[in-house]
């Protein structure tokens, strides 16, 4: 019932995408996150994506300044941020424009717009507002002007802040969420502050809620699927930090870099409770070397970074590979090359992860595909690092790092932790690299262990760790270090195909595109196409059997967020075309004509774009 007693129809939706955008510092991010959390608590499927301005303090009311959150909520689990937004709440018309220009708004969608600008003292601003408003209406958007600030000031004449909590109340009312959960969430947000602040913000929340009930003649409801298990709502970096704890690692060495740093922030906060520490080194090289030192000394360590930092670590990683030191390296990829787009998503570091560094330095390369993966990948990576005594690179990206999604709350298992290193004095002096002739695996003497003394060196060495100049001994070391990847490959499970097990086309992906690819495949299958998708978590080594899997489909293509040349460019030929990273690897390995479609727009790929890409591939493929 609306405030004036008239029954307002409640429209039931299977899903909706909601954005809240403001100037940076106005709290749209907090609002969106809280909204996602409330919806998740009520059992909706939720995916939240941050809308991040590129600068710390972009100018107010500017296109590049848009800051906020996208929340996709649904009556089922969701795995990505979806296509265009159905509904946007904007604190000014410029940030709204920014989202429109970026193609992020569904045509005909609903807009709630702060109306105070219409009367702004600056006639330029008032004019700009009116123009945008008219444009949007003309373009068919359903624009609702909301006196956000005016209403807030009625509640709290002395403060200019809190508009975001008003909007939160409004959204809760609009989506028929439980206001009690909303008020609790507000209390959580300000938990560290004085209680008067909590109350004031709850007051604004209530005001927003009431305003919506009183003024809006429509409401939505999204069903909640029944839930049986507890879920946690985390972003990928938080999941990663908790994964580090869960793996039993005790040392993280890092140097700040966006978008990796928040993982280390969180870890800095909590790590000491398990006897761990985060070492902020003077640079990435030092961070990597500190981690190598820790691992050498028996405390397997992790170093967390993003692209530029990962490039800097190349030489040090070579030492770890050569010395067979277990080490976990996380690269939270961002836009490249060079400084690129520090806050944006890209998957441009795969080939460097596989082939970076001079000489043959075989590393294990994993890619997290979901937020849940970010957690478990740390446990897996540490185990692999210590089993194979080598470097394990875990690729995440800015999309996973900052998106939130519920996943089943992990239940701690003590075998996540590595067994304590064997510190018994070696019965007889042990060879540090007593390579197993079949697998290349070997022991790992640890300082303190009598009889295990050796000097780790980056020079070619024999099984004693002694420097060798002999050609055959040099090859022996290369061979064993490489064999370890083969040994792991034999242990890997064939990945499962999503969708049809054979048919017209197989899409292969890796990393954060998983949800969007699978959704795209679903949509096309619903349209009658027989297609499937495959998502690789192990990239080096790759699980076996991919060749057979690919053979089940007429065409194979990858979908990636890294550059590949466009065949419609005049100078680009099938011969000189630079392929996307994974496509190149698959082609080299399987000699299958794997095509690739990529976009490198700094944005997570939308299911809609992937649908189009696959559809046009299907169309052109069926012509030939």
């Amino acid at each position: 019932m609306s405030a004036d007693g008239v029954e307002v129809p409640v429209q039931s939706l299977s899903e909706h995408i909601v954005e809240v955008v403001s100037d940076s510092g106005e709290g749209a991010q907090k609002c969106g996150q809280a909204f996602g959390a409330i919806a998740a608590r009520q059992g909706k499927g939720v995916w939240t994506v941050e809308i991040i301005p590129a600068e710390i303090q972009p100018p107010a009311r500017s296109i590049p300044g848009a800051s906020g959150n996208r929340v996709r909520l649904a009556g089922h689990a969701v795995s990505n941020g979806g296509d265009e937004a159905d509904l946007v709440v904007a604190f000014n018309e410029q940030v709204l424009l920014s989202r429109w220009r970026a193609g992020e708004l569904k045509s005909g969608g609903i807009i709630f717009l702060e109306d105070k600008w219409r009367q702004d003292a600056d006639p330029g601003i008032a004019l700009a507002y009116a123009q945008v408003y008219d444009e949007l209406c003309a373009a068919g958007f359903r624009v609702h002007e909301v006196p956000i600030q005016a209403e807030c000031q009625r509640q709290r004449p002395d403060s200019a802040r809190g508009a975001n909590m008003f909007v939160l109340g409004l959204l809760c009312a609009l989506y028929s969420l439980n206001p009690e959960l909303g008020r609790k969430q507000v209390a959580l947000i300000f938990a560290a502050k004085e209680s008067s602040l909590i109350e004031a913000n709850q007051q604004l929340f209530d005001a927003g809620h009431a305003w919506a009930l009183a003024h809006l003649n429509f409401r939505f409801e999204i069903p909640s699927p029944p839930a049986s298990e507890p879920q946690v709502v985390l972003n990928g970096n938080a999941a990663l930090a908790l994964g580090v704890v869960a793996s039993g690692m005790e040392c993280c060495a890092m140097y700040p870099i966006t978008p990796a740093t928040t993982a280390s922030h969180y870890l800095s906060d909590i790590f000491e409770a398990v006897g761990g520490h985060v070492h902020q080194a003077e640079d990435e090289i030092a961070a990597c070397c500190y981690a190598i030192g820790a691992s050498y000394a028996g405390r397997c360590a992790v170093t967390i970074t993003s692209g530029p930092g990962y490039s800097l670590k190349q030489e040090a990683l070579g030492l770890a590979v050569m010395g067979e030191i277990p080490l976990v390296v996380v690269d939270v990829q961002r836009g490249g090359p060079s400084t690129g787009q520090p806050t944006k998503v890209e998957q441009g570091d795969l080939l460097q992860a596989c082939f970076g560094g001079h000489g043959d330095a075989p590393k294990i390369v994993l890619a997290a595909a979901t937020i849940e993966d970010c957690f478990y990948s740390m446990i897996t990576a540490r185990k692999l690092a210590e089993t194979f005594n080598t470097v394990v690179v875990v690729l995440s990206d800015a999309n996973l790092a900052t998106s939130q999604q519920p996943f089943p709350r992990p239940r701690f298992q003590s075998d996540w932790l590595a067994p304590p290193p064997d510190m018994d004095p070696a019965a007889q002096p042990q060879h540090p690299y007593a390579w197993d002739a079949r697998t290349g695996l070997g022991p790992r003497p640890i300082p303190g262990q009598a009889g295990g003394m050796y000097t780790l060196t980056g020079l070619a060495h024999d099984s004693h760790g002694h420097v060798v100049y002999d050609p055959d001994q040099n090859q022996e070391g290369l061979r064993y270090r490489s064999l370890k990847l083969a040994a792991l490959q034999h242990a890997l499970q064939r990945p499962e195909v999503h969708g049809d097990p054979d048919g017209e086309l197989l899409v292969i992906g890796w990393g954060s595109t998983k949800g969007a690819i699978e959704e795209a495949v679903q949509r096309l299958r619903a349209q009658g196409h027989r297609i499937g998708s495959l998502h690789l978590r192990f990239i080096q080594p790759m699980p076996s059997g991919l060749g057979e899997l690919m053979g089940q489909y007429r065409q194979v293509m990858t979908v990636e967020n890294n550059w590949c040349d466009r065949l419609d460019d005049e100078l680009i030929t099938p011969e000189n075309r630079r392929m996307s990273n994974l496509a190149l690897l698959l082609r080299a390995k399987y000699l299958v004509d794997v095509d690739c479609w990529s976009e490198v727009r700094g944005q997570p790929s939308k299911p809609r774009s992937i649908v189009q890409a696959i559809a046009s591939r299907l169309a052109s493929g069926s012509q030939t």
Partner: protein
Amino acid sequence: MSSTTPICFLRVENPHHEIQDYQRGMPRWCPGCGDNAILASVQRLCRDEQLPPEKTVCVSGIGCSSRLPHYMNSYGVHGIHGRAFPIAQGIKVNRPDLAVFVTTGDGDCCSIGTAHWIHALRYNTDLTVLLHDNRIYGLTKKQASPTSRLGLRTNTTPRGALLEPLNPLTVSLGVTNVSFVAQVVDWIPDLLHDLVRLAYHHKGFALIRILQRCPHFMDDEFEPWVRNPDRVLVLEHPDGITLDPGLGKIYRNRQKHDLHDIHAARKIASSTDPIPVGLLYCNSDVPSYEALRRPAVPNSASAVARLLDQEFDKFTIWPAEHE
């Protein structure tokens, strides 16, 4: 899983260690190379202190000098060029029970490793640091190092080095948290050994710059100083070094030096002729990095389980919540 308390194991016997117990292989330095004396001083220290070889770690970068860990019968890391310090820090902070030595060259430490050197001084991890300063790149065959003399002809400065040499002492003494800076020469083994001992006992980052002869490429570089003991200025202090009467007769150029006075230290550090040797500066009050990072609780399965529970609680949606 490993705990952060020192890893212990049953020691069946507690043997007495001789010098040979710390020796491994045949050092491959040129005859007359000062690195031999430095190696000997470390091995002598280990013997004197009866360090268990398996709890001793020598860490280095790349260079002739950085070959030292290969000749120590202990654990060791012969790392990559310039990065000995962060590797050593990672070892020591995670395993404070180990005795960690760092051996580095003037190129390794003062050129490519400069950032790590400065920050290692500031972190003040408990490391005994031997800077083998032969004023040249030895291993790569005679290129100018930052400490090469102005005018020195090398393969990269065929018409003479263009710059005045960097003074590692004055740089080190400018770094906040510096806690131990000494200088000595390879040709006075007893003094070298005294300083290594002081450095080892100092609970912090103890840097000894050792003027080291490289007969292969820098014949005569230090000859005038070797020949004339008066061109060596011995800094004496009760907490530093004092010459025994025998050495005192040879090295008569001596000076009382207050090793707690940083300004005095900086002044003396600037002098290159005579060469000041001894402990220039010591401050035992600077906390060591591993002390600052000492975990309050050890890592354990139960601590991990507890922390995960506590954190997940913050983010959990219980099925009950929306019923």
